[in-house]
């Protein structure tokens, strides 16, 4: 007879778990989709045209909306992509989690980090991940960050933890992925290219931030 008590306790715990799983509200969208379109065509001395090659910044199958532009400043070229991801609890999202920089026909990916004052204030710099991607066609320098609402996340694990927290407690967690790429010429120091990326990152962040404050 006493076996019934532990079995009952187990079934009760399992039923409670199932109850919670089936009664929570579905995940909703949170980010204003207009934020994606807040990326201006002109960023200081840079002027942009729509479109980026897949070989430079790959499209992610899970992104809902994106603005992808090629910017030119004299002989310099940079590519900027702002993508919005919704329904972050979708199983399919995980398969696309690495579509940040090209990985096909890439011989080497060197990790760097880029410390940028995205808010314009040197007191609160953010360290962004950056990579040098060695391809047949040349070298690309790519930096990126994730954004939940108006908050910027450079670290992948911190971003995932925050996303998990928001999914559980707020049941809403659309995010933005901002990627900026520039070609890294063989003779040119990487520090110079990083400075270009840093300037562009500050401008993009300011434009998106303005949209979020509306």
């Amino acid at each position, binding site marked *: 007879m006493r076996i019934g008590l*532990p*079995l009952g306790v187990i079934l009760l*715990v399992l039923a409670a778990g199932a109850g919670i799983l089936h009664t929570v509200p579905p995940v909703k969208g949170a980010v204003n989709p207009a934020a994606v379109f807040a990326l201006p065509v002109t960023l200081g001395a840079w002027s942009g045209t729509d479109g980026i090659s897949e070989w430079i910044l790959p499209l992610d199958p899970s992104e809902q909306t994106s603005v992808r532009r090629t910017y030119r400043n004299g002989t310099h070229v940079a590519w900027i992509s702002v993508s919005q991801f919704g329904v972050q609890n979708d199983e399919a999202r995980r*398969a696309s989690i690495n579509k940040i920089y090209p990985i096909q026909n890439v011989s*080497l990916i060197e990790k760097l980090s880029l410390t940028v004052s995205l808010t314009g204030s040197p007191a609160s710099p953010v360290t962004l991940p950056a990579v040098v991607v060695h391809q047949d066609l040349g070298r690309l320098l790519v930096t990126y960050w994730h954004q939940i609402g108006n908050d910027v996340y450079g670290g992948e694990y911190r971003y995932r933890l925050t*996303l998990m*927290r928001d999914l559980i407690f707020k049941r809403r967690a659309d995010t933005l992925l901002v990627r900026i790429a520039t070609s890294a010429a063989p003779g040119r120091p990487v520090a110079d290219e990083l400075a270009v990326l840093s300037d562009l990152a500050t401008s993009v962040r300011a434009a998106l931030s303005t949209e979020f404050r509306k």
Partner: protein
Amino acid sequence: MNGVATREKVIVDTGTPAEVVRVDAVPRVDTRRAWLALGVAVVAVLGLYAPVIAGMAAEWSEFPSLSHGFAIPFISAYLLWSRRHLLAEAPVQGSIIGLPLIVLAVSMLLVGSLGAEPFLARFSLPIILMGTVLFLMGTRVARLSRMAIAYLALMIPLPYLTLNAITYRSRLFDAGATATALGWLGVPVLREGVMLQLPNMRLMVADDCSSIPAIAALLALGAAYAQLQARPTWARVVLTLAAAPLGLFSNIVRIILTSLGAYYLGPIAINNVIHKFGGTTVFLATVVLLVVFDSVLSRFYTKAQS
């Protein structure tokens, strides 16, 4: 907690009618009901975890490097079956230690499912099974079934971020080791990251060629192999862990052979059945290496035992 034992009086006959006495017996355990209760609980657990298991199965079928996941539950069941006589004789006495494990596992399931972190939800499955066995059947049964339950952890794909990072590092390592070996063998090669430039063609150590997917499957193989025969625990641990470096070694040898073939024979060395079934080749080579390693290892523990 003593959830399954029933206490009763028995009559002990000492031979003479005057000495027939009533004494407290050792608690008699209703093992059949306990096993039945365990069956009901396991079915309920599997019901709760159905979406988690379905998600895992989808990944096993989608990614060839994870396909060994299909075999794991069967091997785990076999490990239990191989101990069925010991399990049948084991005293059944539920332990309260199982309850916190069950609560922990359900919490992990909730956080993982609601927070879209499937690894967390998936990893809670072996924990809840162990907790259920402990809570209903007790420490002896749990001890006998722990390997079979722990073995289930090998069917869980690693978190994507982690897997991605270590796969890339493994590709770099494999390409570096191959380039070094080719240099020793007199083959001119220029290595850039994961690319190997031979005089006649360029090869890339792709994700599928990396040792990491193979190592996950081979660890599962090593763990199963180590459990098959009676051996000391240390020998089982060594055999299980040995599967990883042996798999790495087999995979690098395969890449070296493919590169040599590409250098001497041309593209046919890449576009053939053996290269396409590279994973199977590595798997078989590692099985052979494991058997050889086991025979070497057995000399040590046989000598120690004698």
